[in-house]
């Protein structure tokens, strides 16, 4: 069974602070996705990374896929209240995805 562990589980910060969320596994994935989910809604795709060592930037969000394709990180610069939500990572293999349990981020104004 492939497992993805996310840390921290909960994060509460002030507007303007930086933060990093981690997604780790002992398994190798062919791809990794990051999603953001708001309460009562479905997860919305933020990014897909497929190459070991790949770094992708989406405005204030920076995503990195580990060299060995077993781990990933999401860094948010100057967090805003609109960044509040549940961040999920998902590793893809053989047509299916394994999801982490998520990091709940609260950004206070």
């Amino acid at each position, binding site marked *: 069974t492939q497992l993805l562990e996310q840390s921290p589980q909960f994060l509460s910060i002030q507007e303007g602070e930086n933060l990093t969320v981690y997604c780790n596994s002992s398994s190798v994935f*062919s*791809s990794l*996705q990051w*999603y953001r989910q708001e309460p*009562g*809604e*479905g*997860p*919305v*795709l933020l990014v*897909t990374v*497929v190459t070991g060592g790949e770094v992708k930037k989406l405005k204030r969000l920076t995503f990195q896929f580990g060299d060995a394709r077993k781990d990933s990180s999401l860094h948010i610069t100057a967090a805003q209240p609109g960044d509040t939500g549940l961040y*999920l990572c*998902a590793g*893809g*293999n053989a*047509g*299916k*995805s394994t*999801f*982490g*349990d*998520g990091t709940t981020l609260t950004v206070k104004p």
Partner: protein
Amino acid sequence: DVKVTQSSRYLVKRTGEKVFLECVQDMDHENMFWYRQDPGLGLRLIYFSYDVKMKEKGDIPEGYSVSREKKERFSLILESASTNQTSMYLCASSITQRWQTQYFGPGTRLLVL
């Protein structure tokens, strides 16, 4: 943009009722998935389908069945709803490629009384 729609956002049913949850995607994706999401348990895969009329059991198929008669539509059926099936149900779709990017619908919050 990929669009995945689910038939209901909120649903209240009684124990023993048969429940149908429908999901439609408009991007000609081959693969479709049904998950349930519960606090502390994350997303758990119920069933998935790689093609029309094909279905595969996920991690927690007990008490559920599915139907995929058309490529764009994937239905989840609770044969006899029970209170432990109260949950958020999420449908997703993806194309067949090396990287498994799934696109989710808005979810159906089901309450079984």
